């Protein structure tokens, strides 16, 4: 284990970002993701990077916009209420087709809510990151190792598609400590001929902007952007299937809910209940084909979430009425126990609907 270190999820994101070539971090502290900023504050000055604690979340996301315009790798991180503040900036980044990397280590809401873990920003991340028609790639890690790996992947995807990729983690993933290997393959740097790096009087000015004076040009830009999103849906879906080969019940869960669910599945299997899991790793693009295929084989789905039921809507759309989809959830900073998930599995296996 010589090459491994013991890291908090938040630290793993920060170190992986540095390895991915990010030298610009802008943020504003908020629990439970403050370790990302604290780690950057210690590391960035030692490697010639910039750590800046902005005066607000809104300032930080606009600093991201500025650095992204120059084509350099840049990030910010926050937790739920802070991401709401950043949402205007996320829309501007999308409107200007800028690559950026954003982290949301979710806490209980709505409002100021609480500092304990939650997954209730699923809608916000996958459907309503800000005003206007746009998408973000949303990555949902379920271990500290994945926090690191998906950070590197997130930077690569952002550059490849000129869009925002977001890590959607929760307080537990941010705070828990696990051994991590930081041995990553970094993708070849993407050419960024659009970046505002100075013309040297040798070319026309590049313009980075989300304002379009002519409606038909704005319409065309939107249509083209959504063609790009189609390519992302085609090529970038990530998921894990767990014990699905003979499964009659399929659990859907991501992040910490998936870890709890795995324990419950092992217990249910000991009782002879054939249950498996599809764990979406990309929440957008959502693994809808995988759920549609599973709907041909299993007789019921259970969505395990730390929310009032948000991902369940995407599962129902993918399953398209072929099997019932029920919810097993805790909210407000509480995590379902493996026993609670097991109870939900037993109920469904005995034919109940809830």
């Amino acid at each position, binding site marked *: *284990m010589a090459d491994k270190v*013991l890291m908090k999820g938040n*630290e793993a994101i920060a*170190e992986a970002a540095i390895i991915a070539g990010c030298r610009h971090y802008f943020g504003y502290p908020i*629990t439970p993701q403050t370790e990302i900023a604290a780690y950057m504050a210690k590391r960035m000055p030692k490697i010639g990077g910039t750590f800046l604690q902005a005066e607000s979340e809104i300032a930080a996301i606009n600093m991201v916009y500025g650095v992204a315009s120059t084509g350099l790798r840049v990030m910010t991180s926050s937790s739920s209420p802070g991401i709401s503040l950043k949402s205007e900036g996320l829309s501007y980044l999308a409107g200007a087709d800028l690559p950026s990397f954003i982290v949301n280590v979710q806490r209980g809401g709505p409002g100021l809510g609480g500092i304990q873990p939650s997954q209730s920003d699923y809608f916000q991340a996958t459907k309503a990151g800000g005003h206007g028609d746009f998408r973000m790639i949303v990555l949902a890690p379920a271990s500290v190792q994945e926090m690191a790996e998906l950070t590197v992947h997130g930077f690569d995807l952002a550059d490849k598609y000129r869009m925002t990729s977001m890590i959607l983690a929760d307080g537990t993933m941010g705070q828990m400590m696990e051994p991590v290997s930081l041995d990553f393959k970094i993708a070849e740097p993407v050419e960024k001929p659009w970046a505002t790096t100075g013309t040297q009087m040798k070319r026309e000015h590049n313009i980075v902007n989300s304002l379009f004076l002519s409606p038909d040009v704005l319409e065309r830009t939107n249509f083209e952007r959504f063609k790009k999103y189609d390519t992302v849906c085609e090529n970038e879906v990530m998921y894990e299937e767990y014990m699905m080969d003979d499964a009659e019940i399929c659990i859907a869960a991501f992040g910490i809910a998936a870890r709890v669910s795995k324990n419950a599945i092992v217990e249910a299997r000991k009782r002879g209940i054939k249950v498996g899991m599809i764990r979406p790793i990309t929440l957008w693009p959502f693994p809808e084909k995988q759920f549609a295929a599973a709907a041909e084989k299993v007789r019921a789905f259970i969505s395990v979430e730390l929310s009032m039921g948000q991902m369940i809507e995407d599962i129902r759309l993918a399953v398209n009425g072929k099997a019932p989809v029920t919810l097993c959830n805790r909210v407000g900073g509480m995590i379902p126990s493996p026993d609670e998930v097991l109870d939900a599995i037993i109920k469904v296996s005995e034919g109940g609907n809830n």
Partner: protein
Amino acid sequence: MKRITLFAGHYGSGKTNIAVNYALQLRKALGRDKDILVADLDIVNPYFRTKDSCAVLQENGIKLICSEYANSNLDIPSLPSEMYAITDTPSYAVIDVGGDDRGALALGRLSAKIKAENNYENLMVINMFRPLTRTPDQTVEVMREIEAAGNIPFTALVNNSNLGPLTSADDILRSLEYAEKISRLTGLEVKMTSVDARLFESLQGKVEDLFSLTLQPKIF
């Protein structure tokens, strides 16, 4: 044995687990009739607190002093007035200092009295598998920052090098050289090497001053 034992170090080095286990060990060594308290002085990290262990401390007649907001939804850097019991009562005291220099700042409020009484041991908890304390030099740098913030010099080291549940006996053996180097750089002895209870037997006889840790169960 000193009346006050402090555990400080880089955050995530394992101070809280060691402090709780050390207090339970102290109860065994001192018998039932001595007063023992555990004080959690962490004003930075709202998670993974001594409060997680309040039931086992209570069973063993050990008083726990910590922020009344620990493990709640309120993220506020506060300590209860009860913390003055550390210096103002004759109880044996085990102190869980917050991580890094920022976490050790609260200790500064008590440092003058602790040093005047001069019946304390201040232990630096080290873990070579943490990313910012991988080398002896980095660790000594963090150690000096903590000393400056807490205003109490360290008196010894606790080698708590670990990779969580994946730690092997070999990892511990490899960490001995790291701890020894820090000892030479600072002139402080390694008071103990703490390991997960599951590794204790396989390392007994191979590592001096081995200390067994009972960790909290994991549910995911």
